[in-house]
């Protein structure tokens, strides 16, 4: 079975934007965000609509950075963590762009970029598309855990859902930073039903994807500057690095995780790190893409990691399943 798709037409990142909330602003990447609302409310009356508005602001920012009007975007692929992806549909409805809602839990960012690439690559006419991913801490707490002001203790393995959004405009044709390959992930049993340890559950999916990628592509580790995972946090990253050290030697040394980069572990009470699909989306937009553009790094594997579960499935004792779709992003300037 072949899983990697090499894009036939070059597809580049035209522009991108990262939007966040209070904790994201306080984190080490805070100043790199395009916009942070320290009230987390984005001028809205509910957390759910605040998330929708955050997605709208992110796409608007990316559009203005590219100098493009929204009516040039031919397809919008977006997702979030709310039921039925309602944050995306509510927040992005005003643009009037043909829309595909995707749900991959926290793997949504890579899933949406991959879906968009596939559409542009196979379409005869499509040249420009956009991908948006959002997650909001308060909306997620309400949906998946306890009320926001509820006073409880969290396990050390628990993660902090980020209030963050990433928006990307992809265009057909060559550019400085291009997506060159993509590979969908497989659904991998995380062998735990502990909702406070999603990083641990997702680590095996990330490993499964990396193993499949290196086996099929025959690529060497030294061709890559970074292997980036979405939100494994401390626990998941430790597990992944141990697995990589045993079978894909060297990969563990270039592994980095967006969930470890977004917050300051000394200052911020985030336990095992950041989670939520906005984590990988915003860190890609404010950290990795700028570095790729500047040529500080040239070649990365980017995998958002998703924990596939629902509040009901957890209460019923079902295992959490992980998924880790993968894309390869390269700086194309002077690579020959």
């Amino acid at each position, binding site marked *: 079975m072949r899983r990697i798709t090499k894009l036939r037409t070059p597809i580049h990142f035209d522009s991108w934007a990262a939007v966040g909330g209070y904790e994201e602003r306080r984190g080490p990447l805070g100043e790199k965000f395009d916009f942070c609302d320290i009230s987390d409310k984005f001028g809205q009356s509910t957390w759910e609509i605040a998330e929708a508005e955050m997605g709208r602001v992110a796409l608007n920012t990316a559009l203005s950075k590219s100098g493009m009007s929204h009516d040039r975007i031919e397809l919008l692929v977006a997702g979030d963590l709310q039921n039925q992806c309602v944050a995306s549909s509510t927040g992005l409805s005003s643009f009037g762009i043909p829309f595909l809602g995707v749900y991959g839990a926290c793997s949504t960012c890579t899933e949406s970029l991959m879906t968009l690439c596939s559409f542009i690559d196979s379409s005869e006419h499509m040249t420009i598309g956009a991908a948006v991913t959002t997650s909001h801490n308060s909306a997620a707490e309400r949906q998946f855990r306890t009320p926001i*002001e509820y006073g409880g*203790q969290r396990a050390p393995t628990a993660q902090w859902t980020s209030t963050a959004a990433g928006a990307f405009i992809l265009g057909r044709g060559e550019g400085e930073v291009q997506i060159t390959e993509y590979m969908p992930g497989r659904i991998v049993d995380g062998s735990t039903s502990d909702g406070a340890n999603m990083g641990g559950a997702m680590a095996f999916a990330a490993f499964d994807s990396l193993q499949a990628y290196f086996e099929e592509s025959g690529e060497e580790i030294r061709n890559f500057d970074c292997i980036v995972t979405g939100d494994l946090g401390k*626990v998941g990253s430790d597990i992944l690095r141990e697995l990589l050290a045993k079978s894909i030697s060297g990969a563990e040394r270039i592994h980095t995780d967006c969930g470890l980069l977004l917050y300051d572990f000394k200052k911020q009470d985030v336990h095992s790190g950041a989670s939520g699909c906005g984590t990988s989306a915003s860190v890609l937009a404010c950290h990795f893409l700028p570095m790729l553009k500047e040529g500080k790094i040239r070649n990365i594997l980017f995998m958002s990691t998703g924990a596939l579960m629902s509040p009901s499935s957890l209460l019923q004792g079902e295992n959490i399943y992980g998924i880790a779709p993968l894309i390869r992003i390269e700086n194309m300037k002077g690579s020959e």
Partner: protein
Amino acid sequence: MDSKVKKELIKKHSPSSSLFKNSLLAFFFGGLICVIGELLLMLYSHLGCDEKTAGILVTVTLIFIAAILTALGIFDKIARHAGAGTLVPVTGFSNAVVSEAMDSKSEGYVLGVGAKIYTVAGPVILYGILSGFVYGVIYYIYTLVEGMKL
């Protein structure tokens, strides 16, 4: 990779909560709340309430303080460290009800607040009543037995 190996890997890399530190903090904060309760009891007695009324007023005051701290967004920050220290006394119950009421207000007063207010506190009410009933039945049988002996 088989499930057993995965479970072991997760266990190996997952730090567990510090039982000693959490117990100590819970003991301190729980004790502190009881001290405040005791001081309130002395205050109400001093103001002329009989012991039973003063006791009820202490409970009501603690519930009120916890509700206000929840509304101001302070309670959860204390509880993060205090754990069972704030959860076990009546303060925990107050927080569970108020936080859920605050959250579900956006969904309306009937199907939001009305239907969801006891989502977190519900088990305490249900099993509180149930255990009260079981205790009552046992006590009743006990009194019957005692009565027969006489």
